[in-house]
């Protein structure tokens, strides 16, 4: 079971402790993390791993290896600490945490930090959102448990969002907006697609649905489902319009919620085929629980219509190339979320030492959310 790691050194003095099985999986120095990667900043560097990885040996990128020696023995074990110090020993030492409870807490903290930003909350998929206040409080407690890895750096407190004390919304903030219809894509497709142009009763030339690229909007704006976006091209009185609807993130709409500020309003980019005719871009507006927008359709030269949703200023305006692997990764993350919510009832939440397997308090609350 114990995995081996390898200690690598970059010419600039950076050291990397990477699982032998995936030596360059999280090239923190150069790479771009995928949406399943969590990062924990620790004394002397970063820890990164995939929350989908059952083995979960973090990759450590250390720009101050000496400072990191304060905790390397506890997370990776003494042989790894010796290898990092340049002492002779096994080429690929096995990972045997000197403090398994600490290793479990760090793992759990990394998962909680990831969930805070990437949890695939979706009304369409019936994946309840996590309560921000509960999550913040749990992260703060985990940060305390993980004192050793943070060291006594002054910046340690500020590295973690929960201790900034800017969070802590009301406990029910994540609830579904009153009147929204939970579950099933049908209701939303109806609500979303035809609404802007439905009155004109034109000729529907094409329609479809799609997901969004989660990297292109911050959390809390749009539904994470692969069917969250619906579109239709309608011909009315000599004009061809395309109407887009994007299901809003759970709980975004509702009387109790303040309006979304202008700088957080997402835009849709609509095009057809790859390359070819220029795409049209339109600001969406929130109508109940659907972001809506419509525009005069671009010259669709017969290619498949695509819709990209992004927040200007957050992500580049240019849509990325379509990537089937990205959709598969999103599907795996939804599976993870469903699995975790389902296991709330089977795993004893109070059992210590389970590390990330133990549900977060916010997950327990989400599993009991009756609206989902």
């Amino acid at each position, binding site marked *: 079971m114990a995995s081996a790691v390898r200690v690598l050194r970059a010419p600039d003095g950076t050291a990397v402790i990477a699982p032998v099985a995936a030596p360059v999986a999280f090239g923190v120095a150069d790479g771009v993390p995928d949406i399943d990667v969590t990062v924990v900043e620790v004394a002397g560097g970063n820890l990164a791993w995939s929350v989908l990885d059952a083995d979960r040996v973090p990759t450590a990128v250390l720009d101050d290896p000496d400072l990191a020696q*304060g905790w390397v023995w506890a997370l990776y074990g003494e042989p790894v*600490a010796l290898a990092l110090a340049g002492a002779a020993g096994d080429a690929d030492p096995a990972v045997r945490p000197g403090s398994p409870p600490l290793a479990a807490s760090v793992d759990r903290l990394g998962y909680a930090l990831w969930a805070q930003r990437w949890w695939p909350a979706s009304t369409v998929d019936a994946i309840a959102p996590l309560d*921000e206040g509960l999550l913040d409080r749990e992260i703060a407690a985990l940060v305390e448990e993980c004192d050793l890895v943070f060291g*006594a750096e002054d910046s340690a407190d500020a590295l973690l969002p929960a201790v900034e004390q800017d969070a802590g919304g009301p406990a029910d*903030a994540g609830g579904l907006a009153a009147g929204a219809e939970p579950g099933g894509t049908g209701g939303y497709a109806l609500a979303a697609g035809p609404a802007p142009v439905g009155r004109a009763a034109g000729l529907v030339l094409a329609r479809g649905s799609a997901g969004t690229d989660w990297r292109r909007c911050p959390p809390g704006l749009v539904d994470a489902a692969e069917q969250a976006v619906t579109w239709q091209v309608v011909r009315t009185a000599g004009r061809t319009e395309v109407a887009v609807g994007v299901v809003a993130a759970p709980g975004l709409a509702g009387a109790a919620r303040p309006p979304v500020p202008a700088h957080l309003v997402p835009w849709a980019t609509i095009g057809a085929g790859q390359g070819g005719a220029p795409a049209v871009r339109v600001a969406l507006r929130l109508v109940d629980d659907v972001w809506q927008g419509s525009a005069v359709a671009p010259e669709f030269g017969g290619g498949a219509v695509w819709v990209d949703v992004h927040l200007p*200023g957050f992500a580049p305006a240019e849509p990325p190339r379509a990537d089937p692997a990205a959709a598969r990764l999103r599907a795996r993350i939804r599976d993870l979320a469903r699995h975790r919510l389902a296991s709330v009832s089977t795993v004893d939440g109070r059992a210590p030492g389970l590390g990330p397997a133990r549900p977060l308090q916010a997950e327990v609350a989400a599993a009991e959310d009756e609206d989902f």
Partner: protein
Amino acid sequence: MVIDEVWRELPGVEPLSNAQGGPLSRTVKLILDPLVIRPVLRPECAGPLVDPDGARLLAALLRAAGDVLRATAAWFSLFKQVRRALRITEGNPQDRYFQTCFQLATTAGAPDRDRDELVARRELRRLHDSAAGRTTAALRDHLASPAHRRELTALLDTAWAARGRRDPADAPAPGADAATPELIATVLNAGAARSGPAAATAGDAALARLVSLGAGRRAGQRLWHAPQAHPVRHQHSAQELGLTAHALPGKPRLGGSASTAALGPPLDRTVHERVFTVLHAASDRAELPDVAALVRAEITRCCAPWALADETLRVGATVGVALAVGLRPLDPAAAPVGQDAATEAHRLVNRRWRRESYVLRARRLTVAATPAGHHLADDGPLARIAAELHAPWRAYLRRLWVRLHGRDVRGVPLTGSAELWDVLDGVARSVILDHRARLKRALSVPTGTPPATAPESRAG
């Protein structure tokens, strides 16, 4: 690790321990390392890994300190209890109390619950209420008096008018300006390289040379004038550097009210704001001069080059500019362009920005590198943050100036290149963390109660 193992044998130290039963990071940093182990005196206990002899010595030292540590822990519990009773929330209790508790444990042993609550109260008051009349209210009152204002305004006028006056010492030593960039690069390389005593000595020597050349003073004086076109080296104006909003820095006003939320760029701040910031941030106000002396000193200071009185600090600001204009947060892999040779310091800080950009992506906290033109209201929070990344030296120099100014007021010069690097590096970290905090705030979708329009932190 040795520490961790022996620590677990010690009874009664839970208040100083972490969740796994080992010592807290601050226990190691503030108590064990400097007060019990003292690796400077015992090189065999220094460094990340110790040999068996060092390990035995470490264990013996810790066991020998067991009683004192237990007493320290008891004092700390008492301090926390009294802190709650006094409703003090300021500061991190570990940071603020650990060393005092150790001192009490060493001199008085374990606390007696009944008797020593008074001692704890007294110590907490001493640690927290140290204003001794140096309050922002006293400052406001001092500046509100018409007599004071007349006198201080005259003083300010005189000092400002005299600032450009030639001093024989201002005449540059032959070749001084030509030597300056290389000396600055030496200081920056030495600080960041951590490459041993040789580099540190070279760095200290270069820093001392910059001070004796008056490089800081002259660079600061240049900021009062429009930069002259130079065929090779571009001179940055104070406005470009973000030190003033105006084409040239003007005479500071005396001022009368300040809230840290509305502070302008450093050289545009009023005398009142400058002193206010120091009083507001200081936890050691009793050690400062009294308010009247603070104001007078600030009037002299604000008319000095860099608005700093001490030449080592002005050199610090000058070196800081060389570092700051080479920061590339948007493209950290790229080498700094122009006259600024990439030093080890540039590489280190830009590497940190690169790591930050990885963390920000993993946290879904990105900012589009190219402002999205007509789609984005140019005054929106995201556009502002993106614009700051295009001129990262502004935020950097604003923070750096605030720190140097704080040292100037307390009379703490920079004594070596390592000390300067600690300041420069600390500012770099703060700028990155500040960027992240602002981004996070800008990207959070408001829930429940409408968000208070949070003033952007500018106090540095």
